[in-house]
């Protein structure tokens, strides 16, 4: 039996490649094709999260983890649920604001700008990203500060104070960060729309608004979904933006994490991250239950 096993194994290993491939079944071939992707996902997504989960149950003393099981960090993390929910709320509002502002711009470029001018205009939108992020944040604050250019121009009025160090100023900052992404992604999905579908709608008597509602908007959903996901990821973990732009009454996870790490409470950071993932998971479940959000992803596959 062993002799047979060795003979068969040897024959498989040292057979010509074509012959080896021919001996594989479909499932094995599919597995090999996805193996590199799975390895990357495991290394950069699964493994880090697994470590975070593990750390959240350990202690941290003198710069080293102590592998004693404890739930104390979760107790502390749940006391910060308010901050997690606030950050989630801010992220969802940022999505609504960004998509509301970005979609019209993307649609305008798609609909009214000639093809040869579209790329230059989109590049102009993206160019600010080349500037260091902190510098952009500081310039925004400077622009809207009490003695900044905006209030200097409006010298005839009392200085506008609510545009800095408030939740409103945080949304302005987040919009500055995420609007170009949203515009580009939505534009790309608009550009993929088959024009013959729009023409068919007009030919069948559909008005411009009707065609937009029934044809253009649904077919551009993948871009909106992709932009929303990116905006959420950027805003939920944002640290420097809320720290500089938000005021006393707006406290986010990113800012809290800096404080946690400063106190060497790394397992607590892990517990907060796990709970945040849980909150996001619950939101997705609720979204699917009441708004069938997964259908949007089917649009992407379609």
């Amino acid at each position, binding site marked *: 039996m062993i002799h047979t096993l060795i003979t068969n194994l040897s024959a498989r290993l040292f057979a010509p490649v074509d012959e080896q491939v021919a001996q594989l079944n479909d499932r094995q071939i599919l597995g090999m094709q996805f193996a590199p992707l799975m390895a990357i996902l495991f290394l950069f997504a699964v493994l880090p999260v697994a470590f975070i989960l593990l750390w959240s149950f350990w202690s941290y003393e003198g710069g080293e983890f102590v592998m004693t099981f404890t739930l104390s960090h979760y107790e502390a993390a749940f006391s910060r649920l308010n*901050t997690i929910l606030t950050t989630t709320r801010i992220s969802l509002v940022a999505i609504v604001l960004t998509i509301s502002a970005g979609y019209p711009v993307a649609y305008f470029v798609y609909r009214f700008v000639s093809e040869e001018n579209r790329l230059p205009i989109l590049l102009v939108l993206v160019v600010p990203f080349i500037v260091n992020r902190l510098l952009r944040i*500081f310039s925004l604050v400077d622009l809207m500060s009490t*003695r900044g250019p905006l209030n200097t121009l409006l010298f005839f009025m009392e200085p506008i104070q609510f545009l800095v160090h408030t939740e409103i100023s945080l949304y302005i900052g987040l919009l500055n960060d995420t609007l170009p992404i949203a515009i580009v992604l939505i534009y790309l999905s608009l550009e993929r729309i088959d024009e013959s579908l729009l023409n068919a709608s007009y030919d069948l008597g559909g008005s411009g608004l009707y065609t937009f509602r029934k044809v253009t908007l649904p077919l551009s959903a993948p871009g909106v979904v992709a932009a929303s996901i990116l905006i959420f990821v950027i805003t939920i973990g944002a640290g*420097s933006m809320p720290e*500089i732009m938000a005021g*006393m009454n707006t406290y986010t996870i990113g800012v809290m994490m800096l*404080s946690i790490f*400063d106190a*060497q*409470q790394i397992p607590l950071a892990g517990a907060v991250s796990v709970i945040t993932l849980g909150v996001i998971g619950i939101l997705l479940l609720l979204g699917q239950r009441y708004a069938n959000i997964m259908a949007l992803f089917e649009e992407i596959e379609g």
Partner: protein
Amino acid sequence: MRMESRRQFLEALFASGAISIAGCFGTGGDGGNGGSGSGDVTLEVTGITTVNVEDYSDLTKSTSVGQLNYTPASTAVGEFTSRVVEGPVADQYAVACQLSTMEDNFCGKLKELDPDQIDRWDNIPEYLTDPKGSPNDPTRCDENDRLVGMPMVANADSFVYNKEVTGELTSYGAMFDSDEWAGRVALEDNWATSLSKCALYLDANNMADIESIANMTPDELKTVTDFLIERKKAGQFRTTWSGYEEAVSLIVSGDVDILDGWYPMVLSAQEQGLSGATYADTDEGYHKWSIGGYLFDGEAGNQDGVESAVYEYLNWTLGGEFGAQVVEQSGYVAASPAAQDYAEENSDRFDADFVQQRYDDVLLGKLEEDGYWTNRTPDNVGAYEGEWQRFKST
């Protein structure tokens, strides 16, 4: 003092890549600016930028230190500690210049310091090597009482304010407890300073009974935080800051008139046209701190000639050249008063009056007055962070 706090954290993240590369090639980090001199020892130092002076030529021409490479490091306790304990820092660098009391987190990585090898050790005021009433010795390891550090730079912190708007302010009450300045105050986003300064105010004004401001109990922290929350709800504080430029911008732009901040911010604000920028002399006392030099017991620190070069470096920092440069750069003072006479003798290079004024004010003045010595490793650090979180999230 921890200068560009979070900003330096961000810079240090970038620098940590340089550290790894530097370690591989045995060269310095991106903060080095020591010139080549007659000595043949390259000294690798990491720490707060406050201690990194612009000109090391006086050191390199007179000692065995031929080159000093200074790599900026974060003042965030957790981040720096983990890099020392779990990372390569203790092997890549011979000296760490960090906020005193942080060393208790990595005592096992430090050599014992021999003060007999530092000629100017006796020039250091006793209150720096042995601050009375401090819960945490800045030069000795808590766990075994080994002498591991030497004070290098110090200051007595209070707050920054715009005198042209507020008039003279002499109490933390203006920052924490004043309806007149409600909404015109920014706090540092740091539990180690904001909670402690508030505790100082409450304790000095008999509004709370706190046994040790630098090492508060959970109940004491709760009392301080309850007060801060009450004042927050009353609209006392406009915002918090975490970066140096951010803080300066807040007061220069007029968004706030009172800022829980550091002395160099006064100089920066004045340079940007805010002539009224002033550092408060406070009735309640000061938030006192020092930066210490600590010797790593690793690969870099044990190379031939390095240990003696380190002692030459430490000795040099107690001299006039280093002290005068520190004052000119930041307004802070070195741990010895030698800079005063040195600046006088070199008045072509230094503003002798300013150097004199700072040493009189701080080293020979405020550091001996009321207040507390900062403690970056309090017993209840989790409670400090938790209460700060409670304040910020309310």
